[in-house]
């Protein structure tokens, strides 16, 4: 499938974007995007896990039998998630407090597993690592975008609390776009997650169409 790292990067970030094109990893996409900061944090944590587990699966793929492959992949993802969880708790505690709840849920995010099945189990270590990184970054991009839109429309801010996630140096990112009283609450409530994601997929399509590409109709599972 992929030839060269440029292709992998393009696929992960845009063409085959996990959220906007493949419609995978929907749960954190909806649940963790009440603000741009949350989306960014969740995305980055997922990217780390995806890269590590992609590399590991590619390394061990010779030993994994068909019958037990899913449990093994999951075991690997779960182990990576736990390692990230423990490490962050111990050494990046402020960040952990923001993301803490979300991290265990990376385990059951479909995206890492889908990539392990379709990429890392067939490709060598380095491309698998790259695929993990770029798919993860693409995921981050999408989540941040969704979070940004929801946050702006819903609360009137952008990147609120970014300094908690990224450190005080990043407090310049925290912007108030409009007064809170104009916030459309629905956008940060559950319906907003679906609506904004839907519109962002349309946005991606418009860009693709402007770029002369055909509209992508299905998600990862459309046969």
């Amino acid at each position, binding site marked *: 499938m992929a030839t060269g790292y440029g292709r992998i990067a393009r696929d992960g970030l845009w063409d085959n974007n996990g959220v906007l094109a493949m419609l995978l990893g929907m749960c954190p996409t909806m649940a963790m995007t009440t603000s741009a900061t949350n989306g960014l944090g969740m995305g980055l944590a997922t990217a780390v896990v995806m890269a590590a587990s992609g590399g590991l699966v590619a390394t061990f793929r010779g030993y994994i039998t068909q019958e037990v492959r899913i449990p093994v992949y999951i075991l690997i993802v779960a182990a990576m998630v736990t390692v990230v969880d423990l490490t962050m708790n111990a050494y990046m505690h402020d960040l952990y407090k923001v993301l803490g709840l979300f991290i265990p849920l990376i385990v059951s995010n479909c995206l890492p597993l889908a990539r392990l099945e379709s990429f890392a189990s067939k490709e060598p270590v380095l491309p698998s690592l790259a695929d993990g990184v770029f798919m993860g970054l693409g995921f981050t991009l999408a989540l941040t975008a969704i979070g940004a839109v929801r946050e702006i429309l819903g609360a009137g801010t952008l990147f609120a609390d970014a300094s908690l996630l990224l450190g005080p140096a990043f407090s310049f990112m925290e912007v108030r776009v409009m007064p809170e009283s104009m916030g459309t*609450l629905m956008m940060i409530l559950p319906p907003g997650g679906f609506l904004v994601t839907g519109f962002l997929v349309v946005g991606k399509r418009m860009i693709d169409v402007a770029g002369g590409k055909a509209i992508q109709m299905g998600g990862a599972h459309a046969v």
Partner: protein
Amino acid sequence: MMIETATTSAPYTHSAASVQKTMTTVILALVPATAFNLYLFGWPAVFLFAVTVGACAAMEGLALLISGRRLMPTLGDGSAVLTGWLLAMTLPPWAPWWTGVLGAVFAILLGKQIFGGLGQNLFNPAMVARVALLVSFPVAMTSWVAPHPLFWTGTPGFLDALAITFGGQIPDGYSAATALGLVKTGLSMGQTVSQSVGQLPDLMDMGLGLRAGSLGETSALLILGGGLFLIWKKVITWHVPAAMLGTLFVAATLGHLANPERFTDGAFQILSGAAFLGAFFIATDYVTSPVSKTGQLIFGFGVGLLTWIIRSFAGYPEGVAFAVLLMNSLTPIIDQYTRPRRFGRTRRGEPLAPQGDK
């Protein structure tokens, strides 16, 4: 002589029915209640009504332009105006102008045109807008006023009204709670239903509309009249309204009998909130309700029951809008299971056993 050939098959005669006529009839049925209520709530209500209806028509036109369709047959069918009209009738009459505009965006763009326009939408556009506004702006959407009829003393004049609708400030001293809101707040403060209901206008006044509420909420009797007109005109049938109001009444009565201090009675329930408007004008929306009569009975039953449940147990004071949307979501499934029995077949689709000789 050549005559247009083989483009459309028979029949070559048609009933006089048209979409435009249907929508116009519904609007006509709403006129008395609307006029009376606009009088009751004065200029701010008039402004908001105009803004909402105008914005809905404008959004419809905008969507048609964007999608490159012709404006006329579609814009002229009256469905967008009707949506706007119904939406305006469920807003707090003195709500600021932007609720009408944003409501039009929710109703026409999000609720209708994204799905492909008239007939394609899954959810009732007016109720989508109403609920989206309620969820998004709980403050603005729950600020009610008592009736202040036009030209009475104490009623805001034209200029004051401009300030209310376009300045967004309801002056102190006007606000009042709706009947349902009062009971709900009462309950959450530990008052019993009878204590709260004691503070309410009596049922007669509720029927006439002399109380706080939206345009479509207050004068239940005029709404009823409009509804009966629609039934008479065969625009709607009795199934949805009867099933909905009946279920709501029965559920409320049973609850009231079981625990009068916790649940209001049946008459109160069907006369308050948007029950009548919902039963005759909203739950009956063709597009989003089942097509068969059995389906409509089930639909009405569902709306009635959910309305009572949401009003009695859930956080929001208003149940009809949510109940309608919830049942809208079940409509395709209801449709699938309530198809009529085909001629010569059993309900399950097998051919009938021959009867007759022997």
